C-alpha cells in the first residue's frame, strides 16, 4: 500500500494524528461508582447475575491484588496509575438485555458500522457477497459488556458455543468453572489478578470434539466511555481434534488522558486440537506529543494440554500508548506445537514491550517465533521473550527470529531474549538483527520511479511478509493498510 502524495507533504507530521477510529459515541451509560473496593467487585458480579462461586473467586483475586505490586521490569515508563480514579464498569443503558439485533441501541449499531463491523447478519452477508470473502461471526464488546453476537444459531448447529462469557457463566457453568483460571492463575501477575477481580465481559468459545469450526470467530473490542478501564476475559477451549480460528480487533476514541485496558485471554487445546488466535490491535496510541492513549497490559496464554495440539498466536500491534503483552504457549502435551508471529509497529511516543514465552514441557515439542519490530518517531520497541525446555522435554525444538527496523534516529529497538535449555536433546536456535532500510534497497526502488514513501512502504511490507501470511485473508488486507498508515510521515 503506497502512501498517497498528500502525506509526502506532511512528512514531519506523525500518523497518530490520523487515527481514524478516534470518534466518541454519545450514549447514556450506566457505571459502577468510581474506584475499586470490594463493593465494586460485588456490584459487577451482581450486575452479571453471577453464581456465588464466581463472586468468591473474584473477591479472592481482589484481596490478593491488594497485596501485589505493579511490575516494573518492562522497558516502559508511564505515570503511576491511580487505580481508585477509574470506572471499572460501564455499560450502555438498556431497559433489558437486547433480545434481538433490533433491540440494540441504534447508536451502537451505527458505531460498529462506522468501524466497518456490521452487526446485522443480513448486512454482514451482503458485505460478503460483494467482496467474495467468507463468513465471520462477531462478538461485539462495548466498554464492559457484550452488545451483540452474530451467527449464534448457525454455530450452535455445529455444536460450537460462541457467546459472551457472562452468558456462558449462566448457561455452561461447569465448563467455565473447569477452565477459568486454569491457564492464567488468579495470582499470575498484577494485571491478571486485577482482571480476575473486575473482569466484565469477553468471549467464550467451546468447540466440541472433532469439530472444525465452520467460520472464523471474532471479537471486536471498543472502549467508549471516559475514565473507564476495559477488563475483558476471553476463554477458548478446543476439545480433542477440534479446530478454531479466532480474530480480535480493538479501537478507542481519542482522548487526552490515558485509559487502561487489562485483558486476560486463556486458550486450552486438548489432544489433536488447534487454535489459531489473531489480533489486530489498534487502540488509540496518543497524539503526536505522546498525550493520551491506551495502556494495554494484557496477559495472553495458551495451554497445549493434549498431545499433538497446536496453538498459534499472530499479532499486529500498531496502537496503544503502551503495549505490555506476551502471548505464550505452554507445550505440555507430547509433540505439541506453539507458534508466535508478531508485527509490532511503534511511532510517535508509543512504547512497546512485547514478545512471547514458549515453555517446553512435553516430549518432542516444537515452537517457532517470528517477531518483527518497526520503530519510528520517538518510540521504543522491545522484544522480550523466553524459550525454555524442561528436563523432561526431550527432543524440544525452537527456532526464533527477531528482526527490528529503525526509521529515524530518535527511536529505539531492543531485544531481550531468554533462552534456557535444561536437557541435552533440546535444540534451540535464535537469531536477531537490527538495521535500517538499506540505501541500496531505497536506491533500487527510486530508480524504478517510486517515491521515498512508496519505497519505504514496499520494503516494510516485504519485511513483515512472513507474519502477514499467517493472518486470515480478511485481516491480512486490513493489517497491511494499517501498517502503511502507521508509518506514514515517518520518512524524511
Amino acid at each position: 500500500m503506497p502512501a498517497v502524495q498528500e502525506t509526502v507533504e506532511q512528512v514531519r507530521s506523525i500518523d497518530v494524528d490520523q487515527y481514524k477510529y478516534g470518534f466518541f459515541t454519545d450514549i447514556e451509560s450506566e457505571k459502577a461508582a468510581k474506584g475499586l473496593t470490594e463493593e465494586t467487585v460485588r456490584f459487577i458480579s451482581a450486575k452479571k447475575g453471577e453464581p456465588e462461586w464466581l463472586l468468591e473467586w473474584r473477591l479472592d483475586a481482589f484481596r490478593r491484588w491488594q497485596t501485589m505490586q505493579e511490575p516494573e521490569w518492562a522497558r516502559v515508563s508511564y505515570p503511576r496509575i491511580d487505580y481508585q480514579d477509574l470506572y471499572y464498569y460501564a455499560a450502555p443503558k438498556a431497559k433489558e438485555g437486547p433480545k434481538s439485533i433490533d433491540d440494540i441501541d441504534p447508536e451502537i449499531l451505527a458505531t460498529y458500522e462506522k468501524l466497518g463491523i456490521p452487526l446485522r447478519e443480513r448486512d454482514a452477508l451482503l458485505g460478503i457477497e460483494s467482496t467474495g470473502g467468507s463468513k465471520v461471526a462477531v462478538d461485539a464488546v462495548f466498554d464492559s459488556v457484550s452488545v451483540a453476537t452474530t451467527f449464534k444459531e448457525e454455530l450452535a448447529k455445529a455444536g460450537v458455543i460462541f457467546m459472551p462469557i457472562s452468558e456462558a457463566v449462566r448457561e455452561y457453568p461447569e465448563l467455565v468453572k473447569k477452565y477459568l483460571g486454569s491457564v492464567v492463575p488468579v495470582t499470575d501477575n498484577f494485571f491478571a489478578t486485577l482482571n480476575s477481580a473486575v473482569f466484565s465481559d469477553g468471549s467464550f468459545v467451546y468447540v466440541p470434539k472433532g469439530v472444525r469450526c465452520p467460520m472464523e470467530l471474532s471479537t471486536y473490542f471498543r472502549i467508549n466511555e471516559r475514565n473507564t478501564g476495559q477488563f475483558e476475559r476471553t476463554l477458548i477451549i478446543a476439545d480433542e481434534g477440534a479446530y478454531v480460528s479466532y480474530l480480535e480487533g480493538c479501537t478507542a476514541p481519542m482522548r487526552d488522558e490515558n485509559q487502561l485496558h487489562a485483558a486476560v485471554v486463556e486458550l486450552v487445546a486438548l489432544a489433536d486440537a488447534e487454535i489459531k488466535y489473531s489480533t489486530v490491535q489498534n487502540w488509540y496510541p496518543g497524539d503526536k506529543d505522546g498525550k493520551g492513549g491506551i495502556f494495554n497490559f494484557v496477559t495472553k496464554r495458551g495451554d497445549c494440554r493434549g498431545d499433538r495440539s497446536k496453538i498459534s498466536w499472530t499479532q499486529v500491534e500498531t496502537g496503544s500508548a503502551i503495549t505490555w503483552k506476551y502471548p505464550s504457549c505452554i507445550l505440555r502435551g507430547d509433540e505439541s506445537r506453539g507458534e508466535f508471529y508478531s508485527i509490532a509497529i511503534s511511532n510517535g511516543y508509543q512504547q512497546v514491550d512485547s514478545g512471547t514465552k514458549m515453555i517446553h514441557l512435553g516430549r518432542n515439542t516444537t515452537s517457532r517465533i517470528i517477531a518483527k519490530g518497526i520503530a519510528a518517531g520517538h518510540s521504543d520497541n522491545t522484544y522480550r521473550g523466553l524459550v525454555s525446555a524442561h528436563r523432561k522435554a526431550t527432543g524440544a525444538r525452537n527456532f526464533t527470529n527477531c528482526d527490528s527496523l529503525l526509521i529515524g534516529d530518535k527511536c529505539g529497538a531492543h531485544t531481550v531474549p531468554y533462552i534456557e535449555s535444561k536437557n541435552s536433546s533440546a535444540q534451540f536456535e535464535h537469531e536477531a538483527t537490527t538495521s535500517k532500510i538499506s540505501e541500496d534497497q531505497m536506491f533500487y526502488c527510486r530508480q524504478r520511479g517510486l517515491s521515498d514513501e512508496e519505497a519505504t512502504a514496499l520494503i516494510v511490507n516485504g519485511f513483515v511478509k512472513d507474519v502477514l501470511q499467517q493472518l486470515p485473508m480478511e485481516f491480512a488486507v486490513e493489517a497491511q493498510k494499517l501498517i502503511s498508515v502507521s508509518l506514514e510521515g515517518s520518512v524524511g
Partner: protein
Amino acid sequence: MSADIRPMRTPAEQALSAALEQIPAGSGRLSDLRRSAARSFNEHGLPHRRIEEWKYTDLRTILREAVPVAGPAGVAQADAAAKLLAGAAVRRIVVANGAVVRELSDLDGLEEGLSVVTLADAIAKGRDVLSRLAGLSPSRYDAALALNTALAGDGVVIEVAAGAQIERPIHIAHVFVGDAPAASYARSLVVVGDEAHATVVETFEGPAGIAYQANAATEHYVGDRAHLDVVRIQVQGDAAVNLSTVLFEVGREAQVHDFVFTSGAAVARTSLYGNLIGDDSHVAFNGAVLLKGRQHNDTTLFVDHQVPGCESRELFKHVLDDSSRGVFQGKIVVRQAAQKTDGRMMSRALVLGDNAEMDNKPELEIFADDVQCGHGATCGAIDEDLLFYLQARGIPLKEAQSLLVQAFVGEAIETVEHDGVRDALIEQAEAWLKARA
C-alpha cells in the same frame, strides 16, 4: 515498596561487612574509593536472582560460607603452583593470594616504553597513573567489583608508552596457595598509550578440593590507534569460586581482542565491560568455556557503543558435559550518537551431558538508526549426522565426539593472535577432552 524491604543478611554478607570495617582509615582518593565501595556493599549486599544481571548466578546462595582473607603465600609454594605458561617466552609476574611475589616476578629489564610495577608500590610511591584506578565503572552496582575495590591491596600496574611495541606478552599468573578456604582480592591496571601495542595474559589456578574464593579485577585503558590483546585462562581448582571483572575503555581507531578460556572452578563469573569512546575502533570479545561435573560458569558481557563507526564482534562457545551449567548474558548497547555501528554477537553451546543446562540471554539495545547489529544463540547436542559420518569411517564414538568438540571450540580459540598463547589454549582444550575420554 519492596525497595524498602531489606532481606536478612547472610553470614557471608555479615562477615564481608566486618572485613570492610577493617579497611584502614586514610585520606586521599584511594581511601575514599574504598570507603565508598564498602558503603555500596553494605547497602546492597550480595546479588541474588532478583537482580537481573545476576539472575542465573545467585551469589547470596553460592557464597554461603564466610572465609577469611588469605594470608601471604610462601615463595616456593607459589612457584610450584604457577604451572600455566611456565617456560614460555613471556614476562611473568606471579600474584599469589592477591599479592605480587617479587622473587618470582620479572619486574626488571623492561623494554623501552614499558613500565610494570606492583599496585602496592604504585600506592606507596603515589604514582600518577593511580588517578585512573577505578576510573572505569559499570553503570549499575556490581558486588564483585565493589568488594574488589574495597579489599584489593595489590596487583599489577602496567603502562605502555605511546608508540611502544611490546612483543613479549606480559603474563600475570594468579595462584592460590593454602590448604584452607580463604578469599583473595587482586586489582590490576593496564594503560596502553596511543599507537602502542601490547599483549597481556592473565591466568588463574589453584589447588583442587579447597573452597577458596578468588576475586580479580582489571581495568584496561586503550589509547587512540593502540592495539591490545588480552587472554585470560581460568583453570581454578574444582571447589573454588572465581569472580572476575574486566573493564575496557577503547579510544579512536584502536583494536582490542579479548579472549577468555574457562574450564576451572566450581562456580565462576566473568563480567566484561567494554566502553567504546573513540570513533572507528574495533573490539572483539571471544571465549571458550568447557565445563563438566556440576560446574557453573556465567559470562556476562556489556558492550557500550557510544561513538560512531565502531565494530564489535563477540563469539562464545560453551561445551557442557555431565550436569554442568553455562550462562551467557551479552548486551550490546548502541547509543544515539553511535551511527554506523556494526555489532555481531554469537553464542553457541554444545550440550554433551543429559542434565547439562545452558542459559542464553543475548540482548540488543539500540538507539541509533543507521546501524547493523545482530545476535545469534544456539544450543543443542552434537549433530548425529556428523557423528555417523565419522563412525562410518571407523572412528570410535568417543574419539569422533572429541574431534567434533575440538573443531567446535577451535573456531573461538583461533581468534587468539599470539602463537605461543594459542598453542597453550589448544593444549588446555585437548587436556580437558582427554580427561573426559
